[in-house]
């Protein structure tokens, strides 16, 4: 039987990713404007490590999502809204996967291998190539702007449910209403 909220694990993963992704986004915007300095190289390295971590987190989230069905939508929610919500969630997941991948490939194309926490070298699947590096940089920032726009829609939808519909949609993602596990 479905309970009213997401599982504790799903809720923890969701809010952990909020923190990680907002941090990564702000760091990315801040660091790329900096003049070259040791601090810039350090920030880029931390950004890459955190990006790999975010990728692993989203994989964990997807695995959890497949094993634990999310709670049902409110019974009075129109079908088109449900379809829209599903599409939005799918897009959010796709971007959360595509963004770290584009960052990793960009780094390789620019000639900087990613070595996770300075220990685990990720393979360079593309060779160093200036044009490709610039293309992937544009892709990485465009995908990020798309994600930011969709997050705004996501939050707006939550506000709509909370303030206009006054339903239980947002409560499902709050720890206090969590089901077990």
């Amino acid at each position, binding site marked *: 039987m479905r309970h009213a909220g997401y599982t504790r694990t799903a809720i923890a993963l969701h809010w952990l990713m909020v923190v990680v992704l907002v941090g990564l986004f702000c760091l990315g915007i801040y660091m790329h404007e900096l003049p*070259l*300095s*040791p*601090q810039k*190289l*350090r920030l880029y*390295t931390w950004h890459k490590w955190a990006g790999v971590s975010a990728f692993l987190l989203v994989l964990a989230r997807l695995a959890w999502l497949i094993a634990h069905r999310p709670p049902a939508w409110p019974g009075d929610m129109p079908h088109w809204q449900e379809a829209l919500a599903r599409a939005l969630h799918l897009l959010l997941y796709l971007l959360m996967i595509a963004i770290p991948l584009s960052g990793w490939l960009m780094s390789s194309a*620019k*000639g*900087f*291998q*990613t*070595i996770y926490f*300075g220990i685990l070298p990720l393979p360079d699947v593309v060779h*160093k190539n200036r044009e490709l590096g610039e293309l992937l940089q544009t892709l990485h920032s465009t995908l990020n702007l798309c994600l930011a726009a969709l997050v705004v829609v996501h939050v707006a939808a939550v506000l709509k449910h909370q303030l206009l519909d006054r339903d239980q949609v947002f409560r499902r993602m709050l720890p206090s209403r969590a089901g077990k596990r």
Partner: protein
Amino acid sequence: MPACFRLFPVLLAAFGSSALFAAEFNQVLVDKSSLSFVSRQMGVPVEGRFRTFSAALSFDPARPAAAQARLTLDLASVDAGSREADDELIGKAWFNVKAFPTASFVSSAIRPLAGERFELIGKLTIKGRTQELSAPFTFRQERGHGIFEGTFPLRRLDFLIGEGAWSEVSVVANEVQIKFRFVAAPAASSK
């Protein structure tokens, strides 16, 4: 023309690789030669190279003691992988090319080690600082050309390469691997 004359260059090429025709190599083919380096940034190896350098050497594998080598390197020709990095490297904290446009190496001795391996000893000057350098290299002959290849570690701070905030070695490591490959043709007179 008799066939034997036409065969002569072929024979020369065939014997050129043996000690029989051991010759002095003294014409560096710059476009076949390369000078590159690998630095470590936050533990990540990053490759770079120098586009412009000139080298003079004379080397007879049978008489390494008489060999000499000289290198002049145009520091502004550095290619560190990105425009941003190149601009930074020619600046004051790194090579300071306005004050020190070139780096140079002058050999003082070349010693045979074993087989094709030799040791190059000399003085390396970068950014107005001179240090004794010793680097192992290999020498082999291929299609009548002499090929000199070697790798040695250079501590960048010995030459004040990367001053100020950059002198912190936790971001850019002190040790930089220098890789060289010089291809030289034999002296015209020995052909």
